[in-house]
């Protein structure tokens, strides 16, 4: 298998991967871990990329899966979190109400919102990338819009 150029791929896509991870993890420290794990997985698996778009799609899907798995793990181990309520709140970036509203969306909507609005993918492309039915993606997008509208008002 041809050796992938890790640095070039990282430089091309680390922002995208970071944003996808941030939408899930909601704080820079966990986002950083998830970003690294995404690229580590790429290094371990050495996937064959046909073009930069394929690369990007693979990284977005992998980042999304890693974050979902990590959140699942947290939920499983979250037993007595109430006793930690006095701890300082996790570090967050000041990114405005809209970003806060996006971060507060259910996880299944966040990547769709990001890919549709920021990366400019069509819903069919997102469906293919995330390996979900096209109708599901369209529904997620519609529901996400409604939720954002509800939370932010009709700005």
């Amino acid at each position, binding site marked *: 298998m041809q*050796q992938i150029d890790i640095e070039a791929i990282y430089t091309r896509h680390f922002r995208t991967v970071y944003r996808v991870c941030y939408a899930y993890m909601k704080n*820079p420290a966990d986002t950083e871990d998830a970003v690294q794990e995404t*690229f580590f997985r790429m290094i371990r698996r050495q996937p064959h990329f046909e073009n930069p778009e394929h690369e990007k799609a693979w990284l977005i899907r992998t980042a999304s899966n890693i974050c979902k798995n990590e959140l699942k793990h947290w939920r499983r181990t979250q037993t007595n979190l109430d006793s930690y309520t006095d701890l300082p709140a996790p570090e967050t970036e000041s990114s405005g109400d809209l970003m806060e509203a996006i971060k507060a969306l259910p996880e299944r909507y966040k990547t769709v919102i990001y890919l549709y*609005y*920021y990366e400019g993918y069509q819903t069919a492309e997102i469906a293919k990338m995330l390996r979900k039915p096209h109708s599901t993606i369209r529904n997620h997008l519609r529901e996400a819009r409604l939720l954002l509208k509800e939370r932010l008002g009709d700005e």
Partner: protein
Amino acid sequence: MMKNAQIIAAWDSILPDAAAETRMRNAVLAYGDKKRFRKWHRYLIPIAACLLLVAAGYRFRLTRPLHAELDNGIRITYHATQNGISEAMYAYDYEICERELTAEELHRLLPCSAQPDSCHAVFRAETGTFLRAETKIGEVHVHLAREGLPVTDVIVTGETSNAEIGGVPVTFGYFLTKPNSRGIRTAVLYASFMREGLQVYLENGGDEAIREQLGADLGNLVCELLRQDAPDLSEIRYDNGTE
């Protein structure tokens, strides 16, 4: 209604700071290097083991002892004496003279059924005493020297085998030369013994592929020489040949 541009602007603000970006980049690149190294590393131990085996096999091939079954049933061993060759001091501090030995003298010196080639001998000029001689019996080089003198111009040291044939202790050994331009090594097998004040050194050389055969031929010749009467040096003098 919320504008798409606002969503894009919101996402735009999500970026790692410079320190975090450097940290992530370094971690990813370091992980890549480690994986790349490990990918090769897993082959290193088997490769090293194979090389060691090849080296050990090659060394064994070069240094393994040779065994030869002689016609009389004696089994002799030639140990390899690799890297044990040095030059002998081969000069005399007195005057010498030289001549060919007659067939009769040669028979006194080397009593055996095989006919040696012509033999060139060295004598002390002042007294006419025999010092040394060289000849060939078949393909075997034979060097003879009075006790206490160097028998050849090289000294072969290292592990050798000792056998007793007809009550005479005989030393056997062999070494391989460096490969020639065609990659072929020559095996040089030797045997030496002392009899009646005469040192006898025999050397048989040839392609290393037939070294067992060379060893058997040399061993058989040694047996033949030791089966015969002891050499008689009393009648071999320089003045005999000049008369």
